[in-house]
């Protein structure tokens, strides 16, 4: 299976530890992914909030390039990129977008068949062959550490478009955590809003939302939170130590990318990824 890789802007900047850990895990299980050549913005946030055409055109160009390179599946770790790609595929399949596609094909000199299987990192890891390899390669069992799996919104909704897990009661990350030897906690905030990009325009709102999520995880005895979205990670990790955080006296919870935790369990050098976190992960090397 030829798998393409689309890092997007976050994984090349604020979330380099996500990028590094994903690629390290892929390597560790002896798989290979290849970054799409000449990829562009996925269309998220700035793109899709200004133009409906950009919101489709940008991801479609990436998908066309991926098809040109002959990828059958595409690993997209960033939840926002994943969501945009899935939406573009859905619109092409159901939304009468023949004109737009024809236009793009003409301008780019490419053809498009809308057939690549777009995967987020959880889906990728949960592929039977991958999870089996991971189970066998575990070097640092997690010893029942209590982990809160945080999904956010982009991985789950709209459900009819992304089709990944039950949007109201997701459980796939928990399955993964159990395979790693961790104990996922039962908690209620796993699909609550993290505040998203309101972090810049309304920070006080995001502090409140993050507080709700982290408090709920902590009250359910979680020792750390895992996520698969750069924006969620940034908000949950970063807004906990905000100066007006209402719960300053409480112990802060580290927020890891799911790939970092897998990498840690596989005995990969996780410490350099952890160094980028504002709340230092308490996992011992």
């Amino acid at each position, binding site marked *: 299976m030829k798998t393409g890789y689309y890092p997007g802007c976050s994984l090349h900047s604020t979330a380099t530890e996500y990028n590094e850990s994903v690629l390290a895990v892929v390597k560790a299980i002896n798989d290979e992914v290849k970054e799409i050549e000449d990829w562009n913005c996925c269309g998220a946030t700035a793109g899709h909030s200004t133009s409906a055409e950009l919101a489709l055109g940008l991801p479609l160009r990436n998908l066309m390039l991926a098809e040109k390179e002959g990828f059958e599946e595409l690993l997209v770790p960033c939840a926002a990129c994943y969501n945009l790609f899935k939406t573009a595929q859905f619109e092409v399949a159901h939304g009468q977008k023949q004109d737009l596609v024809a236009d793009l094909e003409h301008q780019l000199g490419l053809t498009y068949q809308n057939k690549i299987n777009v995967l987020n990192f959880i889906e990728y890891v949960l592929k039977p062959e991958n999870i089996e390899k991971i189970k066998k390669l575990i070097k640092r069992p997690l010893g029942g550490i209590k982990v809160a799996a945080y999904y956010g919104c982009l991985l789950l909704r709209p459900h009819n478009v992304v089709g990944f897990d*039950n949007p109201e009661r997701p459980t796939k990350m928990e399955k993964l955590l159990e395979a790693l030897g961790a104990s996922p906690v039962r908690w209620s905030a796993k699909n609550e809003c993290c505040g998203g990009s309101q972090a810049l325009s309304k920070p006080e709102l995001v502090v409140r939302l993050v507080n709700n999520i982290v408090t709920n995880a902590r009250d*359910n005895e979680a020792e750390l939170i895992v996520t698969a979205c750069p924006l969620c990670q940034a908000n949950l990790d970063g807004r906990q130590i905000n100066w007006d955080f209402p719960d300053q006296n409480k112990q802060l919870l580290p927020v890891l990318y799911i790939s970092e935790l897998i990498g840690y369990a596989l005995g990969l050098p996780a410490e350099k990824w952890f160094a980028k976190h504002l709340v230092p992960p308490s996992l011992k090397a």
Partner: protein
Amino acid sequence: MTKSYLVIGAGAVGLQIAQDLKENGHEVWLVEESTMPGGKFNSQKPLEPGINLAYFSGTYHPGDYLFTSKAVSLMASKRVKVLYGSKISVIKEEEGKFYTEIIAPKENYTKVFDGVYFTPGFIPFNPEEKAEYLYGINNFVLTGLELENLLKTGELKKNPPEKVAFIQCVGSRNNGIGPGKPYCSGFCCLYSLKEIDLLKKVLPDTIVKVFYLDLRLYNKGAEKLYQKAVENNVSFIRNMISAIKEEPKSYKPIIRYLNNGRFKDELFDLVVLAQGAELSPNIKTLLARLNITENELLEFYGTPENPHQIRPGIYFAGSFLNPMDGADSMVSAGAAAFPQINLKESVQSTMEIKYFTNTGIIFCNCRGSLPVDELKGTVADLPSITISDCLNEDELGKVRSFLLDNQIGKAVFAGCSKIKIMPGLEKLAYEESIGARFEVVNLKEQGYSLYGKEKFKAIAQKLLAGALARLKFSTTPALKVKNDITFDVVIIGGGLAGLKAAEALTEKGVSVTVVEKQDSFGGKHKNKVIPLEGINLKEFIEKIVLKLENRGALLLKNAEIVEVSGAPGNYQLIIERFGKRLNINAAAVILATGTQNSYGHYRKTSQIIFQEDLFSSADLLSQCDSIGFLQCAGSRNDLNPICSRNCCVSSLDAAIYVKEKFPEKDVFIFHQDIMAYGKYEYKYLKARELGIKFVVYNRGQYPEIKSIGGKIQVVTNENYLDDVVLDLLVLAEGAVPNKENEKLAELFRVGLDEFGFLRESHQDISGGYFPKWGVFVAGEAQGPKTVREILSSAQNTAKNVLTYLNQLQNSQLKVNYSEVIEEKCAACLTCVRVCPYSVPVVINGKNVAYIDPISCQGCGICASECPNKAIVQNNRPHQGVLAEIRVLAGEGK
């Protein structure tokens, strides 16, 4: 012509339809997936108001009694085949015939039918599909049925919850993405209120909050429950709950809702989900074989003439047709059966009755639960038989051969209750022309359940001996024929219901007189030209009147009924018209007096009008740019507490009509709860899609209406909305019981309910019958209805009248009636006064009372009240009762 019909689903509706078809001579196969008849009435005991006895009674409840009895008497007939635990595997339509294959537990059948009735009801929505409510994960989240079960077993009392939340519309009214149906399931608001009522009875201090979208308490019984809930401090909060969260560690449910514009997180000890209705997947498969898609069914509305028939030969009824409560289901059953019911040719007796002399005992071990074998031969040395199940054709067949082979003319049935089994036994004997009399001993409920295993034998022996003693004195059944019947039906009230009933009856060849007090027909709907539920009522009514005139019906305007005498089958009515008196004889009378409009505290102005004005002239609409509808102007207030049902549907129809014709006009609807129950929800959805604006006001807090500068200003309490300025405001008038009802009730000796509507014998399951024979109710006289419901009710009543006329004119093998011993009678009128069915009359000239055996219902009240013991109840004469008492008291032993 006799035809054969397949009825799918033996719930309340299926049983009723099967019975009506069978009584009319058709062959009926009733196929039921479960192992018992009665459907939801049976399994979900307190689902409907009225069957409240079910609450604490454990195993027995009237639903069970009623439907077992109906099923047994159906199965006793050879024209009927009832298959439980069975499925239709193939159904194919070819040239109006339906070719089917049926898989039953013992045998598979191939059979051709002339028509199919779909009456499978619904299955409850599985709340696990709505994962946000954590059902199946969180132990504090239950369905209503589970709560009920905890209450019955006493579990809940051991660990009483302090706070309970009810979430409505789980799986219903979902028009977005995710699981759930777009329609309203109709009965869940009522159902939750019943659960709350039950909960409050057991645990009065529990705090209860109900989260709802609209409280659709449209039936008159529901209003009582609502008032009671309010008295019990139940809070009703209009809020859609998007998810249930859990309190850390305890996992108790937390509900987030809007409270005065702010979010509030509230912790509860229990959350109860009101499941909606869904179609069973098996039924969907069957429909697909007939090329009917689920959407086609969901959108199926029928024509006003034929609301139940989707294609020739395929009928839908009950909550399968449209989610509805028990009362409406029974009406729907009758209306759906109506096309196949005909006035039978008078079949006076040519039947020869076999009178056998032997006595026998029929034991039933009730599916192995009663140790009847230990009684065999211990009481009397008589031929006996043991069956194991009364709901089994083969077992009933054994009873049939037992009677014939042993020439049994008197038999004791020793098993369960008389109510369940007696009609079936009598039916069975009648079909074989055996003049047998039966006594029933309830070994189950009066023996085994009461005294337990150890004492069972001794008690059962005594009961059995008593019944045998009683049996010696009961009289042989006789073939009775009613003479002197007229076949005219008089309908009082020439509104929509009366006219529709008249149309239906004249179609079947019954001659009809319609008596209307006013000087025109059509009642309050007569001038409505804007389509209401797809009907131009003005034209519709004119057409019916014309049809009735052509069919020779006697239509009397300006006429009023002043006196009633006679008995069922032969009523003499005196009608006053322009000061003159007119005598009319009638076999049956239909009371269709409708309702009167109630305008609340409102007055009309040039810009504030009522619905009736709006519907009568389409011009009004074109003259204004903005129009508003104020719902419940004349109902759900201090003057008229109950919902009038028709007004929300009317406003929705009118608003949609305006918006479709003039999309640029602003349309507002101010409402308490939009009563778009069942499939009416689609109207509500359409209205919203069209951009009609809905503004909620709280019950009893009508928005203030001001007249400013030629405009109407409606002051709303909504902080998102400025006051609304309108050119025209339409007030929704309500419906109150007709003032005539009191007079009619007295004349015809029927009851009124607490609101002043005519009272049926049972609000939920009677299907439009009064306890009294020969007098019927149709339309809104019984309670408020929408136009389609009025038409359905009229058609159902026409069916009831036809069934009654057929019973009247045909000979019957009667044993269950009272007889007057003329020599002893002093014509004191006691029986005339006490009879709840007004059957006894004093014969002119003879000065003795006469009880018509066909009309007599056999209740025995007259026999016990007669001061001179001049009345004998034939199946239970005094000597028999005394003989039984002697045995039971141990005398002579």
